[in-house]
């Protein structure tokens, strides 16, 4: 724990000092002209133009959505898949704060930050898909509560969960700003917001699946089941953790100078441990999927083209990564854990896109395929999120150790 890793916190003398500190922190750090910066700037610049076009000429101007396919990849990928992948935050806070597994403590901040940003940007991307976003105030202020709607539940849980995650992360902000008393208060809120956050996550991860329950007559029977909510919840556990594994090893390299020694030493150990949990969760998920398939008595459908596609998802991207996770954990093979995580994540993308887009209106003569601008805007959102993540990680104690004064504030 060398001093260089402790982020410089401002010596607050007065409001003037504080503002000067904020202003200096606003400036970008490091080399501006990097391949990533150039490419992402182009993506964002074009993406912003596309977004302007969308708001002037309507959603149909840059998407291929139609009357039969009202939801495309902005919902199916950005929101439905994005939230599953952000599930790592509630799983990690459960492991660290409820089960008390301290060895994962070093990554919990970065996981919560990633979760929060994912919700902020991907749920924020929802605003682009809303035809009349100015009326989003209605379900919030309560003049029109559609309480019978699953979407009402999901929307509220998104908002509340974002608040819970912000509180969970807020000690890092206070440490960055050098606000000791605030840090102590915010640290005291962590457990409550963790418990609240896990509860909210349980409900809205499954709730995202429940959104599709009323579309029984439109979703292919191999994917439609009354157990969609349970499947969504269970799969969010390993989807979230797989994301933590991949994202963790990536930011470990990218932000090498910000990583604490402690985390650096434990990183492989943590990755193997997460792989073990993934293996368990995936086993439960696979078991449930097979159980639903048997229960539905739809063996004959497996012989169709749709059945083949279903098996690609179930065997190639559930069973194979499941076996890989088990093997990797037994052999303590970090690399194999990462391969398994990548396959598992692909499987999650496939599953969510299948239910919300591909197997939705499967009988349609002209199936929906996304407009290039739909992909582009999605890429824009991802770039913006990475910018935000990078800005925060380079300033606040996320991967590194908190400042010395904050180290013994919890417990």
């Amino acid at each position, binding site marked *: 724990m060398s001093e260089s890793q402790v982020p410089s916190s401002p010596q607050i003398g007065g409001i003037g000092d504080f503002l000067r500190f904020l202003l200096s922190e606003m400036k970008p750090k490091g080399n501006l002209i990097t391949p990533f910066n150039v490419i992402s700037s182009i993506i964002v610049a074009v993406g912003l133009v596309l977004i302007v076009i969308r708001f002037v000429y309507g959603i149909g101007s840059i998407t291929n959505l139609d009357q039969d396919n009202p939801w495309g990849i902005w919902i199916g990928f950005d929101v439905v898949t994005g939230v599953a992948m952000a599930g790592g935050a509630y799983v990690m806070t459960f492991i660290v704060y409820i*089960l008390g597994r301290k060895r994962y403590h070093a990554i919990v901040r970065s996981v919560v930050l990633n979760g929060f940003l994912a919700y902020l940007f991907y749920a924020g991307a929802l605003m682009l898909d809303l*035809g009349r976003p100015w009326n989003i105030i209605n379900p919030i202020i309560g003049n029109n509560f559609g309480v*019978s*709607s699953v979407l009402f539940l999901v929307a509220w849980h998104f908002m509340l969960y974002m608040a819970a995650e912000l509180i969970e992360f807020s000690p890092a902000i206070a440490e960055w700003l050098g606000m000791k008393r605030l840090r102590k208060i915010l640290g005291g809120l962590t457990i409550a917001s963790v418990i609240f956050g896990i509860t909210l996550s349980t409900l809205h991860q499954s709730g995202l699946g*429940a959104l599709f329950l009323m579309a029984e007559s439109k979703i292919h029977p191999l994917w439609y089941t009354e157990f969609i909510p349970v499947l969504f919840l269970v799969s969010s556990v390993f989807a979230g953790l797989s994301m933590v594994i991949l994202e963790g090893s990536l930011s470990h390299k990218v932000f090498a100078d910000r990583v604490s020694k402690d985390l650096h030493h434990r990183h492989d150990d943590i990755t193997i441990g997460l792989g073990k949990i993934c293996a368990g969760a995936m086993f439960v998920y696979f078991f449930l999927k097979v159980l639903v398939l048997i229960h539905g008595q739809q063996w004959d459908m497996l012989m169709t083209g749709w059945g083949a596609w279903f098996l690609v998802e179930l065997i190639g991207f559930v069973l194979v990564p499941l076996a890989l996770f088990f093997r990797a954990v037994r052999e303590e093979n970090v690399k194999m854990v990462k391969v398994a995580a990548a396959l598992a994540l692909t499987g999650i993308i496939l599953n969510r896109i299948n239910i919300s887009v591909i197997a939705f209106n499967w009988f349609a003569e002209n199936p929906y395929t996304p407009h290039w601008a739909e992909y582009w805007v999605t890429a824009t959102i991802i770039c913006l999120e990475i910018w935000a993540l990078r800005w925060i990680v380079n300033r606040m104690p996320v991967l590194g150790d908190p400042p010395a004064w904050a180290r013994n504030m919890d417990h």
Partner: protein
Amino acid sequence: MERRDFLRNLCIAGASAVGVAAAGEAGAARQKKEFVSVLVDTTRCIGCRNCEVACATENGLPIPDNKDKTVFENIRDMTPDQWTVVNRFDTDDGEIFVKKQCMHCNQAACSTACLTQAMYKTENGPVIWRAGKCMGCRFCMVSCPFVVPKFEYHSANPKIQKCILCYERLEDGGIPACVESCPVDALQFGSRREMVRIAQNRVADYPDQYEDHIYGQDEVGGTGWLYLSAVPFDQIGFRDDLSHEPVPELTQNFLYAVPVVFLLWPAFLNGMRYIKTEEDEEAQIEEVYNPGDES
């Protein structure tokens, strides 16, 4: 004890006021009007498309040219500015014309799906859409088993468009514009109970002319629009595989589980955490009693 008496009286007054209000509500519920309904007899329809014109006129939509018979060459769907269409089907029984529009389900999936109550099942039966509440999420479109609500994809201020069963005309004691325009009584308007009875009688009286199936009587728990046909309904563009269970019931179990999870989960998590802390303390105590015991 004047003050206590006063309070007590106030409480009694309050309670009785609530009681009266509740009783009044219950009374109103009992007197609630039956859902309205339209019976479509497809054996009578001649494909004149007067209903399309009447609908457009009533709702301020572009007026279709009903002299143009080429439209029948393709099966058409409703659009944001055409809330009803008449299609022609070539069946075992020759050409059959079928009018299509929102079915106004008894338990509407769209209104259940709506998180702002913009899509709204009125107590008379019409399902209406309210611009000031809608946020354009299109969950109603995802949920509707008949793919009825249409969205204006090319507008900066898009609306959800669909038949609203001329609910304003109904409030003034009128009948829907399309029904009024029908020259051959293929459309009949009345209470749902009455329309079901008429349809049943017609099927019973002329078993050779009709399929023994009133479409909409049981589909998705019953719809406001009912159809009679001479041929099986899958030949005239209807899905015959829809469940008789109301669509909103598909999410009911999930929604019932929400408050239970919301109350039990935090308590359970807290309990787990408590046990874990206890365990840690036990371990510490043990360490104090057995110092140097490394295993």
